[in-house]
Every structure is written in C-alpha cells, then in structure tokens.
C-alpha cells in the first residue's frame, strides 16, 4: 500500500493493515511471506526485573507509610498531662517523648496566656518556662505569686522525672527575680478545684515519701536555718494536708541562702528558697513532711 525507507505498509487478505520490512517492494505489488514489524517495537516490554523492583518499591513505600503514620500517631498521642496553674490555668499534653503536643487554656486567663503561643516541638520544661515568662509579662505572676504544676503521669518514674525537671527549670528561671511559691503535685485533682483554692496545697506537704515514715507534725518547721528558702509544698494528689500555709515559712527571700535539705531524694536541688516540692519524692529533713504514695 505504501513504501517507506524503513518499512512498507501492507494490506492482508483479512483486512489488516500491517507494517513490514520493505524487501524492495513497490506500491500495488502483491507480496508473500513478509517480515512483519513486531508490536514489541511500539510498546516497551515490561521485564520481570522491573516488576520485581516495582514490587520492592511498593513494599518499601507501604512500610514507610506504616512507620510514618505510626510515628505520627505516637507523636500526637498524649501520654502525660501537666496542669499549670498560676492564675491562668493551662493543660499541657505530652507525648511519650516528653514533647508538648497540645496546649489548652482551662480558664479565660489560660486562654489569654496561650494566645499566639506555639508549642510545636518543645518539651514541657521549655513550654512551662516560656509560659511563666508570659504570665509575668501579662501580669498574672508577680512577687509572692504561686505556681502549681499538677502532673498526671501514668508512671511514677515519669512523674518524678517531670517533677524534678520542672522544679529545677522554674528554680533557675526565677532565681533572683522574684519570690513565688512553686508546687508540684501528682494527679490532676488538686488543680481541678480551681486556682482560687490552690492555697490549700501550697506550702505544706502531705505527699508520700518512700523513705520517710509518715510523721506529719504540724508544728515542725521544715526549714531549720535562719534564712530558710525551700518552701515545701507538694500536696500529693490534692489531699488536704492539714497544714497552714504559714507553717513552713512559705516564702523566703534570699534564694542564695537556701539550705540543702537533708534526706532529700534529690540532693541539694531544693535550694532556691521559693520552691516547695510536693509529691512522693520529696522529703524535707525535718521529718515533718511525709508522703504517702497511696495519695497519688
């Protein structure tokens, strides 16, 4: 039917138009036994090796997707919650890695405190520090103020870890700037009662100490030094300890003079003078601060 340098177009008796090698054909000629062009020439063949690679790539993509989704879900899943109460009340949801995945203001001031704040990729210590700074800037926290951190952790070890980290961070951050009471308690109950009721848990400690026997002596002062600084607070789980705030000399001005609390599980970490630590891991060597682990 048509001749080209590379091929000829033939019409067979069944009505098929075919391309074949042009073996010196002429238009109009009837030919026998032509060498037909192969379809493989027009369509790339799919080799088995390519299929194997595709299968491997597909499996790898599935695995990546699976692990990616799992990691993301693990990242987003709250594992621990910290309720920060100044007057603004804020809930921090932490994942297993200790990173803050969500922040929520629990009252109007809390919402105001969080306005425009991004917690993405930050840990609880950083976020707490920054929120305290914001609280100071917004006038929520001032001299003689009160900070409560209620840690709702599924494991005691985690509670201890976060408690120590928060205590140290707040101590360092506020050291020499102002005197505030810091309370670290386990569980959420203490906070749920609202910020107005926080004094009930402030300076006193009725939280559990694994090492000390429960010898809550209301008269015992926890700070034996003349310039006591550490104000232990930490009511375990919001139990009313039965102590008055002033019993322990709630706030002591010179942080430098803070005594090292004997018998403390955390060594000399209680030195700031405006930190009071509740919970079951603090004991203040006076023997009057006793914690019952069951109160968590």
């Amino acid at each position, binding site marked *: 039917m048509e001749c080209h340098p*590379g091929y000829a177009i033939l019409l067979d008796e069944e*009505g*098929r138009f075919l391309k074949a*090698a*042009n*073996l010196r054909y002429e238009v109009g000629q009837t030919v026998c036994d032509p*060498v037909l*062009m192969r379809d493989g020439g*027009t369509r*790339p063949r799919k080799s088995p090796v390519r299929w194997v690679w595709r299968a491997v790539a597909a499996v790898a993509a599935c695995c990546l997707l699976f692990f990616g989704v799992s990691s993301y879900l693990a990242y987003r899943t709250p594992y621990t919650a910290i309720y920060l109460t100044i007057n603004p009340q804020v809930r921090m949801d932490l994942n297993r890695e200790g990173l803050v995945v969500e922040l929520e203001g629990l009252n109007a001031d809390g919402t105001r405190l969080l306005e425009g704040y991004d917690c993405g990729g930050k840990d609880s210590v950083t976020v707490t520090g920054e929120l305290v700074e914001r609280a100071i800037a917004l006038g929520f926290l001032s001299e003689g103020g009160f900070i409560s951190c209620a840690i709702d952790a599924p494991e005691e070890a985690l509670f201890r870890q976060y408690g120590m980290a928060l205590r140290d961070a707040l101590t360092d951050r506020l050291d020499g700037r102002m005197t505030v009471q810091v309370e670290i308690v386990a569980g959420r109950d203490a906070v749920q009662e609202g910020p107005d009721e926080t004094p009930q848990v402030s300076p006193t400690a009725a939280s559990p100490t694994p090492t000390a026997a429960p010898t809550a002596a209301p008269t015992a002062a926890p700070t034996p030094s003349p310039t006591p600084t550490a104000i232990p607070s930490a009511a375990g789980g919001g139990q009313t300890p039965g102590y008055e705030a002033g019993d322990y000399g709630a706030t002591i001005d010179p942080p430098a003079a803070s005594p090292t609390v004997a018998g403390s599980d955390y060594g000399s970490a209680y030195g700031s003078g405006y930190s009071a630590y509740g919970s079951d891991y603090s004991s203040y060597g006076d023997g009057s601060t006793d914690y019952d682990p069951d109160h968590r």
Partner: protein
Amino acid sequence: MNEGHDIIQQVCAAKKDMRAADDFISAYMPFIKAETAKFLKRPPIEGRDDELSIAMLSFYEAIRGYARERGGFLRYASILIRSRLIDYHRQERRHSDVLSIHAPAGEEALPLEDTLADRRDHSGELVEREATREEIRALTRQMAEFGVSLGDVADNCPRQQRTLEACRRALQYARVHPELLEELLRTKRLPMARLAGGSGVERKTLERHRSYMIALLLIYTNGYDIIRGHLKQVLKGTVVR
C-alpha cells in the same frame, strides 16, 4: 552529551511524524549499514541483501519502542538490529535445503528461473499493478480528507482477532445500510452511534479503531474495486444482525 540529546529529540519527533521517521532513517543509513555489516561480516549491498531491509525495519522499531530509561538510542537500536537479524537468519536457515530460484543451474550456469517455463502474463501484471497503484493513491488522497494516513491506519489496526471481527461486523452493517457510507462521505465523520447501535459493536471499540474503520468504510464506498477484491475474505462468514 548534546549530541545524545539531539538524537533523543530526533527520535521523539520521528515517533510522532512519519516523514521525520523516514528522514531519520535515511540520515542514519551509514549506522544501519555498519550494524548489518557487523552481522554479515561484509558490507551489505543495497537492493540485494534482505538483511539490510530487516535492519532498517529494526531501526524503525527502535524508534517506535525507544524510551529514555533504555539508555542511549544508538546502543538500543544496535541491540535490536542484531537480535532481529539473528532471528531472521534462524528463520531463513529452515529453508536452507530449498534450492533458490536464482541459483545457477545447468551447463550454461543460467539462473534456475530462466530455465523454467514462465506462464505468467507479465504485461498484464504490470497493467494491473499500475491500476492498483492508482487506486491506492486515490484512497490515500481521500483518507487525507479525513485526516487519516495509511501509517495511522496501520498503527490503529486491531491486533486481536475478536476486535477484528467486531470491526468487520460494523463494516458489514454499513454495507447493508449504504446510507451510513453516504453520511460518512458527506459529513466526513464516522456515524459512530448508528454504527455501534446497528452492528451491536461497542462504541468504545469503534472509537479506539476509528482510523481503521474510516479506511475500511471508504474502501467499501465506490471506486476501489481492486482493493475490495483483495479484501474479499474480510467479510466471509460475517453475520450481521
């Protein structure tokens, strides 16, 4: 690097345009001859060695089948030419015990074909070939009015027997209903809906082989007696609803 890029561009152009493919093949004739010579272990003689024609067809196949992930085009074409020539050589070996009609025979060493009685009417054949050629030219011209070339039809031709039969059913329906052929000539468009509805062939099948259907229907309009005679078997045994 640039040279390789140019070749790829030329190949891409040749894939889409028949004329560009012809030009590309002509431009690379030395390469094709060299590849054939490697196989034959002697320079091929144009117009005599079938291997050269096979190599040219393989080069065209390489143009059609080339993709960037296959590497350099010339290397790909070289592999294709070589494998195709090997296949051709194996195929031809089956007939190695058959005596060639061009082989010298007898005491005077004349070609065998010269010693055989020839009952063919050469002049009649020439006349018939010229008439066929004229018909093909007319058909090509008429197809061009529909925007279809013989190359398009060859590319668009059904490969599977079932599809081929479906197209035949549609053709047979159009033959029985000549108004469809008239409509085709008048509107220059394939009456797809009526053809599909009447013949019972899926519209999608007809659309997929539109160029092929146009060529077949044109052949069955008027004036293509020789081609129609060649296609007699097409409609043999085709039942129309």
